[in-house]
């Protein structure tokens, strides 16, 4: 021991302080890389009638991601002002933008109006994953991934939180984890319940569909916000998304035991489903361009494919994600 070791340690602390503080200061004073601007590249030859809101992605610099663009008549137009979103949705005059909070280390959701002005804001407890708004703009749903919560310590265990928000008041209506669930008419509950991917029933904003993950199953559930309840419809459905007429649901179908998916479309009446022509693994909550056409992001480009299983996937917009159909403009 002795004073020699003390001196070495003292010197080491000094060196570490200098190096650490120096590095942080250099990083803080480093070039601000937010000078260029990401811009989605629209392939105008495809579906010139597509009218979308999208989130711009800059493949060269992830820090610039998240500006909101409107795609109309084959052109991209910047719409966002200050909004920077990891996930965005808009309907009925209200939108949700899930992104990083100004602190840079937390997440928040902003509720915005048709001028894309933020009107309410609430904290998110994890990574933005999915956002949806009911067709009348009354309710919104956000799903986040929560880490540090893998309580059973199982490989690939993850946790989600899905919250329903009243978009007029900005108040939280509830968290799906706290709603009652029934399966085959009986109460259904387990510690590993996770909900994600809410889609609202067009014209009836209190009703929704979502995914319930538990014990290796991924159930399609049908829920009622007013009754705070859900019932299990069938297995093998993730990230459901209802067509504008409410008759079909496009969803992710997991390739058994993997983190890969295929897109399939089911009939709400019969719950029977069929594949679509996209054969790559798509991890997105798919959007409907109209009652016949799907739009989704794959590796930060947007593609379309017919919902009936015919045709081929076609590139629609480069460098964009989180597609939102705009019915009557914004």
């Amino acid at each position, binding site marked *: *021991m002795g004073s020699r*070791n*003390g001196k*070495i*340690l*003292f010197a*080491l*602390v000094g060196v*570490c*302080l200098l*190096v*650490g*503080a120096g*590095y*942080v*200061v250099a*990083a*803080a004073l*480093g070039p601000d890389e937010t000078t260029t601007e990401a811009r989605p590249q629209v392939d105008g030859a495809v579906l010139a009638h597509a009218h979308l809101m999208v989130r711009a992605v800059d493949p060269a610099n*992830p*820090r610039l991601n998240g500006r909101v663009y409107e795609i109309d008549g084959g052109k991209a137009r910047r719409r966002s002002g200050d909004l920077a979103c990891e996930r965005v949705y808009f309907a009925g005059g209200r939108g949700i933008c899930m992104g*990083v909070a100004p*602190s*840079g*280390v937390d997440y928040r959701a902003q509720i915005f109006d048709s001028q894309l002005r933020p009107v309410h804001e*609430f*904290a*998110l*407890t*994890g*990574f933005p*994953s999915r956002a949806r708004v009911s067709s009348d703009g009354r309710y919104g749903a956000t799903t986040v*991934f929560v*880490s*540090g*919560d*893998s*309580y*059973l*310590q*199982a*490989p*690939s*265990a*993850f946790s989600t939180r899905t*919250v329903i928000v009243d978009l007029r008041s900005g108040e*939280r209506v*509830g*968290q799906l*984890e*706290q709603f009652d669930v029934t399966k085959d008419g009986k*109460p259904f*509950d*387990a*510690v*590993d319940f996770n909900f994600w991917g809410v889609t609202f029933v067009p014209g009836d904003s209190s009703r929704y569909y979502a995914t319930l993950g*538990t*014990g290796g199953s991924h159930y399609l559930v049908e829920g009622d916000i007013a009754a705070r309840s859900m019932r299990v419809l069938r297995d093998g459905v993730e990230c459901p998304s209802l067509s504008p007429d409410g008759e079909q649901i496009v969803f992710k179908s997991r390739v058994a035991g993997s*983190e890969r998916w295929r897109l399939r479309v089911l009939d709400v009446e019969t719950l029977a489903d069929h594949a679509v022509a996209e054969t790559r693994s798509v*991890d997105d909550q798919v959007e409907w361009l109209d009652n016949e056409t799907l739009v989704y992001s794959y590796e930060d480009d947007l593609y379309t494919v017919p919902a009936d299983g015919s045709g081929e996937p076609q590139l629609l917009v480069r460098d964009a994600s989180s597609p939102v159909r705009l019915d009557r403009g914004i």
Partner: protein
Amino acid sequence: MYQVEASKALLKPRLWARQSSRLRVPRNVIMLGAVSLLTDISSEMVATVLPMYLVFSLGASPLAFGAIDGTYRGAAALVQVLSGFTSDRWRRHKEVAGLGYGLSALGKVALVAAGNTIGGVGAIVAVDRVGKGIRTAPRDALISLSSAKDRLATSFGVHRAMDSVGAMLGPLIAFGILLLAPARFDAVFVVSTLFAVLGLAVLFLNVEGKPRRAPREGAPPRFSAALALLKDRSFAPLLLAAAGLSIASVSDALIYVGLQRTIDFEPAVFPLLYVMTAVSFMALAIPVGQLADRVGKVPVLLAGHALLFVVYGVLLMTSVGYLALAVCLVALGGYFASTEGVLTALAGALLPEKLQASGIGILITVVSLGRLVSSLAFGALWFAIGLQSAVLVFVAALGLAMAVAAPLLFRAQRIAPNG
């Protein structure tokens, strides 16, 4: 800057001396506490930003992070027993612990140098977990061997409190750096590496590898002697009691999930659950350790588990207010403060000097297996009969485990010399 305060406060010899005399804690224990504090700052800095780093800088899906985080935890159990025995056999607790701390420090360096692929980050996290598995048993053996038998619980209390201070400071420092230099994860990794290096330096420069109770003569223990601990007259009952108690204790993560189902609190409150439990733990670890040295480790250990009844009671309430929530979290912190460290102190008192690390390694493994069984059982019960009934089953199980453990623990303490 937290960095400055933490390092200076801990590295000023005068402050050590004053603390040591007031608490009568051996200098070596404070040094080992400083090593853990610095190492925990380093690991928690990385753990805090790793998910964000993976998603925003590497473009990974959050699912990939879940996979990275969960995959390697199982490997630690076997490593603990082997590293414990090896350090007893070679009588090199400090060096074996140093290997564990060194691996984690290397992981941080690798993160700075090569952490730009998802696979690379996965490998680095794996190395970090193995390092943690290696260092725990020899480190706890060193704490035990540095302390008089009647001061063991205080020593472990001081060490655990310092350890948790590090775990609290780490995220704050990481957030501070990212506020100053947004998205510069490399700066977080560099500072984390420096803290890991400092921890390693304190270990090698200031921790005595052969403390007062360390065995200096006699043949090195054989593996059969370590295995014989499983049927040792005083240690076997301790293992049995520890296994039973850990199976009947619901893990904190599950308690948080249960609370969240019961109470409709704001999402922003959720991180506060961890913070409040940690603050309660930090505040109570040292006084509870002192109490255990005064009135006996076994009564404190049992009383600590009895605090879980308070937690279970709150989980059983149909509507929980913020007051009940606070009571629950303080009780949970108290439970942690009076169980893990006190149990290790009890083991340290019972185990022969030459088999300290082996025995502690076995004990940690038994407790973590018990926790795994507990989590699986609680999850299965929740699914089968619902949350409330599952908690009721665990209330009964804890009562039973305590009734069985109490005579076993008192017997273990009576048989052991100077227990």
